[in-house]
């Protein structure tokens, strides 16, 4: 039932490592682009939550990472809540990037949240913090989980090239040829596509997300705007496509395209991770 503004809403951060002012440390696998072990804090959630805030700290220079978040049953089984979340790193010394996103995902009371990561370098650490919220916005129940709508390679998303003509949309790029399940919402993140040696001074880009067969795509979300510079050498830290509602059936092809104010090859390409919210 619709329960407007259920209660005052409790909040808990079960993965915090207060002794380091960050989330728990999670280390990637011993080989590049392989997931490490699931890590938890030993703290269980205190109440049913309908939403969570995921905050990831990537402290390594110039590497891509993927983060999985799940619920550990204590017997070696982890139920995934979100797979292959893609926070990027920036270039330069003393680099450290963070990304926070609010997700309408249900977490049952008594859950032990756990995280693991893969990285483009071997055995690289990141920090994962989660704040759970008892109430969904306006009393809305959370989704059961989020699934990636792309196949991650090299610990990053799918390369989107805006093309060689400035301020003109490039070609559509497959995110997934077939959406694996029905989804009721979508969100995303944007990365550097592994390029931290850009020469441009500033660039702006507009992104479309579409559905449909190749050659007959329909834009469902158009002209999301973002930007980057040489300082970060990438679409810089924390660029997200916040969750939005959609109703997409399993089997649907999902694609993306973009335009950019800068058309130098190599400096114009970014990578995109898209995720679907499943009931």
């Amino acid at each position, binding site marked *: 039932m619709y329960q407007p503004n259920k209660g005052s809403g409790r909040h*808990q951060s079960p993965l915090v490592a207060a002794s380091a002012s960050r989330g728990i440390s999670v280390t990637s696998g011993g080989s590049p682009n392989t997931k490490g072990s699931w890590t938890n804090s030993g703290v269980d959630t205190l109440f049913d939550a309908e939403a969570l805030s995921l905050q990831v700290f990537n402290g390594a220079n110039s590497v891509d990472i993927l983060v999985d978040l799940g619920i550990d049953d204590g017997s070696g089984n982890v139920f995934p809540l979100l797979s292959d979340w893609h926070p990027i790193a920036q270039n330069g010394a003393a680099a450290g990037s963070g990304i926070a996103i609010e997700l309408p995902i249900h977490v049952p009371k008594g859950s032990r949240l756990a995280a693991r990561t893969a990285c483009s370098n071997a055995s690289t650490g990141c920090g994962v913090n989660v704040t759970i919220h008892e109430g969904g916005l*306006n009393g809305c129940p959370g989704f059961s989980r989020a699934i990636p709508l792309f196949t991650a390679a090299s610990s990053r998303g799918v390369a989107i090239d805006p093309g060689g003509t400035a301020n003109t949309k490039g070609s559509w790029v497959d995110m997934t040829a077939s959406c694996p399940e029905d989804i009721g919402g979508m969100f995303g993140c944007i990365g550097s596509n592994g390029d931290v040696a850009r020469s441009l001074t500033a660039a702006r880009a507009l992104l479309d997300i579409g559905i449909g067969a190749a050659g007959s795509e329909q834009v469902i979300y158009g002209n999301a*705007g973002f930007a980057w510079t040489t300082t970060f050498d990438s679409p810089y830290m924390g660029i997200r496509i916040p969750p939005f509602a959609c109703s997409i059936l399993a089997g649907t092809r999902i694609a993306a395209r973009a335009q950019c104010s800068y058309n130098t090859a190599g400096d114009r390409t970014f990578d995109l991770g898209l995720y679907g919210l499943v009931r």
Partner: protein
Amino acid sequence: MHLPANMTGARHQTLGATTGSSSGTTITAGGSANTKGSYSSLGATSFAFEGFTVYFLNNVSTADFMIDIAVGSVGNETILIQDLYVSCRKATNFASVEIYIPVHVLHNQFMQVRCAASSASASAQIIIVGHSANPGGYPGFARAVPLFTAATSRGVAVDCGGTANTKGSWTEIIASTPVAIDALLCVIGCNGNVARTTQMNCIYDIGVGGSGSEYVLIPDLHMVWDANSDGPINVIHGPMACRLPSGTRLAARSSCNNPASDVAGRVFDIAPLGLVA
């Protein structure tokens, strides 16, 4: 039942995009620092929005910005979102901020945007993507109000304190919330400091209650900054459901892992908005 809106497929409408320059609609702050400029029109809604996503772009200014989003014809604007904060950053950095705001907008309403900035006549670009439904189908809120006083186009300074990984003192964000709120959107900035030298991890608490008797409402929200970013940029926490009656005192406190190495750099600012039913 909470089903329906997105079970039939949500629509999305983009307002303000300028495809000729891969950018948005320019908004310009007032001719004096920290005064609102004129409204820029983004166009009319083709259907009712239950929420919208704001994309903010700025490559020309190191200024702090405070943004108002309104509906209505020129001269008859009604503010829906007041004092949405976007922090300054280094001159060579490029602001790119995305904020989801679940506020209802009627069909066929002109959306207008204006801003103040810490530098006179500073400009930036805005794109709004409107959504006919929110994820899960919940209805949008009526408006968002600032839960702080924007004095210099930024939020309230919060010092992590001098002891590593130990929460500093509570800082009052607002003595009395002006209306009852049902959700909180916390926007973080660098407190005007673009000369940071050290990477810092930081966690902060949002608290409520009288001075000296605060209790933690939302614990341990995390952010990070370093010498490259010169501040916690593009840090948005929320919107998070929390029901607070009008008259509530709101405070914040924080810790960081490296306070001694950059004393000025351990201070950030926070500019929360309250979503009103």
